[in-house]
């Protein structure tokens, strides 16, 4: 929004424009590019030497455990995304259409809180709650059930992922659906559309973009999280973030960790772009 035609570049304009360029080039673009370069380096006698070899790539990509880990991570993050979207939907629906404006604002404020509380402490809390002699099994024991094993299973990992993603997904879905033109829904109802059909044929298509963005965020967060699969899933099947962690921390094999990281980023970009393209295309088709 140029309030004054400031085409010429002057000191004033540069003062505000340059800091972020300098800062992000040195401390964001630099690290990311260096990581890409590093994936071609060699490690000799536990020391990294600069080189341009494809040995890390061929070593990592030819290993069975890398691909096991890769597909497991894609699988568990997809399951988490489907779960979060489905679990969040009724709540977001209620907040968007059945709650008052002020209730909705309070709900969103409350859901922002977990975003700023330590995810580690929350995970540790689940660890204690879900454990063999924990709160849930203690409660179930009083009515003669259990104990059930919940830690070190996919269920544990998913509980962790939900802790991380559910608040955000509910917020995004609520905001999206609250912005739908309510008269369109009334029109559908007046024309004889049944409630469930209204959800499928009116509400979901109208909020498609927001829903897809929520799903993308959910996938990115679950895909990149190492805490839930490590502490609650027991890392029996290591996810890619755990693979990065192990390779970096114990093996000093930074270049191989870089290969894993780049594969992760590639996957995430592909999914994000596909999702955005889908959201955009469908929107146009509907009009």
């Amino acid at each position, binding site marked *: 929004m140029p309030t004054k035609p400031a085409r010429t570049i002057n000191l004033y304009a540069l003062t505000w424009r340059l800091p972020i360029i300098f800062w992000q080039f040195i401390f*964001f673009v630099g*690290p990311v590019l260096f990581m890409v370069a590093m994936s071609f380096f060699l490690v000799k006698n536990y020391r990294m030497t600069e080189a341009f070899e494809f040995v890390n790539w061929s070593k990592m990509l030819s290993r069975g455990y890398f691909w096991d880990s890769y597909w497991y991570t894609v699988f568990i993050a997809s399951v988490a995304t489907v779960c979060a979207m489905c679990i969040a939907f009724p709540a977001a629906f*209620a907040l968007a259409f059945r709650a008052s404006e002020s209730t909705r604002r309070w709900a969103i404020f409350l859901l922002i809180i977990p975003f700023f509380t330590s995810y580690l402490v929350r995970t540790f809390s689940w660890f204690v709650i879900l454990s063999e002699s*924990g709160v849930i099994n203690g409660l179930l024991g009083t009515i003669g059930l259990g104990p059930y094993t919940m830690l070190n299973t996919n269920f544990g990992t998913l509980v962790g992922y939900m802790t991380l993603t559910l608040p955000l997904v509910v917020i995004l879905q609520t905001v999206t659906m609250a912005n739908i033109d309510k008269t369109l829904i009334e029109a559908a109802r007046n024309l004889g559309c049944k409630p469930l059909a209204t959800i499928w044929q009116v509400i979901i298509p109208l909020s498609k973009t927001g829903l897809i963005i929520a799903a993308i965020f959910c996938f990115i967060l679950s895909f990149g999280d190492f805490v839930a699969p490590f502490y609650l899933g027991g890392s029996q099947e290591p996810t890619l973030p755990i693979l990065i962690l192990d390779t970096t921390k114990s093996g000093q094999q930074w270049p191989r960790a870089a290969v894993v990281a780049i594969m992760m980023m590639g996957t995430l970009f592909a999914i994000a772009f596909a999702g955005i393209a889908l959201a955009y295309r469908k929107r146009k088709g509907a009009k």
Partner: protein
Amino acid sequence: MNANRTLNVILGIYVALIFAFVFAPIIFSMIFSFNSQRFPTIPLGSFTTEWYAKILADPDIWEAALNSLIVSCSTAVIATFLGFCTAYSDYRYNFRFKGPYLALILLPPTIPLIIMALAMLAWFSKIGMSGQIYSIIIAHSVLTAPFAMAVIRLRLNQMDPDLESAAWNLGGSEWATMRHVIIPFCKPAIFSGLFLTAAVSFDEFAVSWFVSGLNKTLPVIILEIVQGNIDPQVNAIGTFVFLISMTLVVLAQIFFASRQMKSIRP
């Protein structure tokens, strides 16, 4: 009509369950922090402040708390400055490569932290800046600047576009206009940004853990304790960290709200 009522009740219960799930770990962590059992279960043990006494007597935790304080305060200042500059550039100017320019600040939070952690660790080692407190501060400012930018940019949206021109017409230079018009106008958003970025930085553990070396922050200490075994001290530290984060977020919200009030009555 009756069916609609029932549905509302069911949906209400459902929303309550979702909130229970989201807040259960936070509330239980607080309860456990005052609970005498090492392995908390139902029924709960007796009330104790043992875990708090333990962390208060631990010099490592004091040092980590000090580090966390330094990191989050410095991060807040740098990130908010960067966020303000970018938000203002975006608001005031149209220029070539504006898309990539904005992507530069907005991209970092979309990249998984573990990847940023690895990239930062490798880069800092390469340029000889690893293992220092300032390494964490720099990394955190990259990660949190977009939050400050978003808050300040929203505030600039509420500014009457003629306000700046009016100040120039009255003879104010661009710098004077910045000082006397724009910065005062953005002040609530700037404070909001400071608290928000401090809160995010205060809780971040993955990048801190990778680049911090021996200068541990509180979340890194938590991570290390959790790796060992079940130790209720974590709950005590966690409750303490939670209270600080909450204070910061509530302060940010208060400034955010005051901002909206003022926009109604300029």
